[in-house]
């Protein structure tokens, strides 16, 4: 019974998630009027300039990741060199120092997945509770947690390091994963998503059927919240993937480094000459490979990004 109810209303949940920030019926269509407004050349030129600005560094990185070390210094930075060494560079990157790059990549993936999946499940439970339950201390919990949205992760890095040093758990994987489990912004988004996508009538029906709160959450509510879950998961994944300050301060064993810390350390060795081989091609290709998964996630999961940003800004 509860299963059927959840399945039948699933499309509604999905529709809500594409624009949870906007009241669906009154939302404007992409093209406001049937006739397209005339293209304005000045505005068009302005926007082209803007896109050139945002894409130029990525283009520069891609082009220069195809060059060997010698070619880097000989050729024009905005165009390909005389030969394409991208494959050689990739091989050089993943085999550098017995494959340390792959270790960093694995660490980044581990920290991101463990941190983000954990954080998002915790946010889903919490958001569901704040949106759909009345309980003592609820107002207090909400005030504290939503107040914490503005506390930036960087402000917590040094205090967390000092505490973990006292506890003797710096330089461990847990020291990166535990802080990654906290996401007040994710909790806020999940509260909004839960309020929008889980109808009270469905919860009442489940209750009449005798389902307990735990079963109801996984069988009914979680399915309806799934699109919102994907959005928050994406935000948390990218956040942990890009994390730098915390692992920099926590870790001193290079085999525990994530990509961000590893790449920067490699760059300092190469730049200061501490590394005997000037492997600029490894730094550049390593940087390019590090952003490929993120760019791909942006291209393929656009609607989740948009809905998260819409919910975060409009629902004030």
């Amino acid at each position, binding site marked *: 019974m509860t299963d059927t109810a959840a399945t039948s209303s699933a499309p509604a949940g999905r529709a809500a998630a594409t624009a949870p920030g906007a009241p669906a019926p009154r939302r404007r269509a992409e093209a406001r009027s049937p006739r397209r407004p005339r*293209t304005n050349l000045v505005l068009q030129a302005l*926007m082209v300039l803007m896109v050139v600005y945002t894409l130029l560094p990525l283009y520069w990185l891609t082009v220069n990741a195809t060059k060997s070390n010698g070619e880097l210094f000989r050729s024009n930075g905005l165009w390909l060199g005389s030969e394409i060494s991208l494959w050689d560079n990739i091989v050089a990157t993943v085999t550098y120092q017995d494959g340390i790059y792959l270790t960093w990549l694995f660490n980044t993936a581990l920290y991101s997945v463990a941190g983000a999946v954990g954080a998002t499940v915790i946010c889903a*439970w919490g958001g569901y509770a704040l949106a759909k339950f009345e309980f003592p201390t609820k107002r207090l919990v909400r005030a504290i947690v939503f107040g914490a949205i503005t506390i930036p992760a960087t402000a917590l890095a040094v205090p967390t390091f000092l505490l973990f040093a006292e506890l003797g758990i710096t330089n461990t994987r847990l020291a990166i994963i535990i802080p990654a489990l906290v996401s007040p912004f994710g909790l806020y988004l999940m509260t909004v998503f839960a309020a929008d996508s889980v109808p009270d009538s469905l919860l009442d029906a489940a209750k009449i059927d005798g389902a307990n709160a735990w079963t109801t959450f996984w069988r009914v509510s979680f399915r309806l919240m799934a699109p919102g879950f994907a959005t928050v998961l994406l935000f948390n994944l990218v956040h942990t993937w890009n994390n730098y300050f915390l692992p920099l301060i926590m870790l001193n064993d290079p085999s525990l480094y994530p990509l961000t810390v590893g790449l920067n350390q490699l760059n300092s060795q190469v730049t200061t000459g501490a590394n005997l081989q000037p492997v600029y091609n490894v730094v550049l290709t390593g940087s390019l490979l590090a952003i490929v998964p993120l760019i791909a996630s942006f291209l393929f999961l656009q609607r989740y990004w948009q809905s998260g940003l819409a919910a975060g800004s409009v629902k004030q």
Partner: protein
Amino acid sequence: MGAVSTTAAAPRRPARNWTGLVFVAPFLLVFGCGVVAPLAYAAGLSLYRDQLIGGRSFVGLENYADVATDPQFLDGVGRVALFLVVQVPIMIGLALLVALVLDSGRVRGMRFMRLGIFMPYAVPSVVAALMWGFIYGDRFGLVGQINAATGLALPSPLSQTWVLPAIGNVVTWEFVGYNMLILYAALRAIPEELYEAAAIDGAGEIRKALSVKLPALRPALWVATLFSIIGSFQLFNEPNVLKTLAPGSISTHFTPNMYAYQLAFNANQVTYSAAVAVVLGLITIVVAYAAQRMTARQESR
């Protein structure tokens, strides 16, 4: 975020019981371990001092008195304040301009442009700083190549004078698209009726932008500005990465966070680094709160 309660509250008022608290308990647990405990520990630690003789002793607020007059800390605070005053308006202004243009529908290739301008948000700040650092540099960077090819003498962006604007450019590049999307989403959520009403009143495009779009954008503008202000005070990643390429221009106390980082590894200054971190957190909260008050006052006017 006070208005959350209005959107999140369920119309139904179920019986009060503890079930909700059980669901929110895991969050409170990690929040306690990851936010409350570190802050409380740092605040406690900041009241002590390590001495060569006698070990750790309670000194009350002495560390804070030192922070208040520490030239290296104040130097960093002044720098991020300057950064904030210049970089945030430029970035938010650009984001607003792009959002309004995209919303007007008067340009072609909107989907591509929206995506292209948002793309840098996907790039980790470390990679962004590395990329721009190489572009700025004279080894195989663009600035050096432009100078060589044209005979110009563009100043190095990594020089002492230009390194702060150069960092501002990296941060703007990273976040202009993110802010643009927040503003754009708010614009798309403006109900059609408002435009129809404005059209009936005979409002032109500019009038529409001023009297319909800007008021509707205010909450989103506020969110974008607040997070940018906080980001400026917490500046760390970009200068820390560029420091390798420009060691002469970026000191170890270039920003307050870099200073706290530096101190945390100095065995004799652990407690002082805790005080610096606490003061920095408090400044961030006060500035963000002041900005909120200013916005609120403007809205009530």
